[in-house]
């Protein structure tokens, strides 16, 4: 059962990390839809 909980927790940890990592690569919608000269934040 401990391993089962660990699997669920890992799924959540990955879910929280994913957007942080993707944003590093400039994959946010706002960045996709704006040109170089737009300052987003």
């Amino acid at each position, binding site marked *: 059962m401990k391993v089962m909980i660990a699997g669920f927790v890992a799924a959540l940890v*990955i*879910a929280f990390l994913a957007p942080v990592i993707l944003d590093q690569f400039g994959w946010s919608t706002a960045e996709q839809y704006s040109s170089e000269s737009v300052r987003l934040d």
Partner: protein
Amino acid sequence: MNLKLFSVASFLMVALVFNPAWAQEAPEVDRSATGGAQTLEDIMARQKQLEVDESFRSENLGDPASAPPIRDELGTLGGRSDADVWRGIRYNELDPETQVRGPAVDVLIQDEGMPWLEFREGPLINYGGGAIIGFLVLLVIFYFVRGKIRIEGGPSGKKIERFKAIERFGHWLLAGSFIALALTGLLTLMGRSFLIPVIGHEAFSTLAIGSKWIHNNIAWSFMLGLVLTFCMWVVHNIPNKLDWQWLKAGGGIFSDSHPSAKKFNAGQKIIFWTVMILGVSVSLSGLSLLFPFQLPMFADTFGFINSILGTDFPTALAPHEEMQYANTWHSIVAFLMMLAIIAHIYIGSVGMEGAFDAMGNGQVDLEWARQHHDLWVEEVQARQGKGESS
């Protein structure tokens, strides 16, 4: 398929519309009362789905050649009125330019969106949802008719290790994320129809935003779980002759017999390959949706299918059409997976005595193992006899 029929039909319509021979044959409609614009007759004919010669609109795009100077009337539009411009867009006769940056921003009108929406709100919800409810009902009936599959003669009390911790971790990473994806996916598809009327727009909005966040992000856990379990279990899932025997005996489910099996029996191999193949497909179409317009896959897929089967699927797809196909496919595959997984969850929990332990703490009863995986038990014991671990 509806969409295919529609594409063929619209292609034919367009071909007819731009065919001058056809235009001459068409019965003349008197449009003098509207000054050449469409009349009630035209609209009614379209509603009756008659073939209407639309050239009076599609060719009525203004007169850029004699456009007035920029400061004059209609000058800034280059000799076209607003209506001319919109007609041009409607019939794909203009090449629009925009200052908006990003993918697919120059698509202003996209016809295939309607059949997609209608399929999604109609048949997809009805057949998909109906299949799941129907299958759940069948399982409940099965449970009451067949009952729980017991360990014959009861558990022995001795244990044998079935899955190592890392195997169970991979399984629960896959299973936990799949269930989260299934629930949030169903909410995305069906929430509008079933939840908004009950909880209202505001509450649903909050729910939908949270659900979308989960669905988009937990997809990565699912893909990792898929890769992990594939790598760990694929060797045990290569089909062999034994599987045929097992299938012919119906897995012993109805006859109370116990056909021989190694680590995974034929039924489990079917679940394994269903999860792997559909899992990859749902992941690919999901990625295509997660990065809009960046990973179009359907034009190439249709081209490939056409080249093999000689079919006539459309291969020139607008960017949004690519997304619509990805979305439709994503949902169909997801429904198939949910059906398979419901059966799997049933047999791995309430359906069979002693099964859950395999994924619970990894230790199953020796008698359970002998009855369901006799050859695997022999292999493990032979290896242990030689001093190796399972």
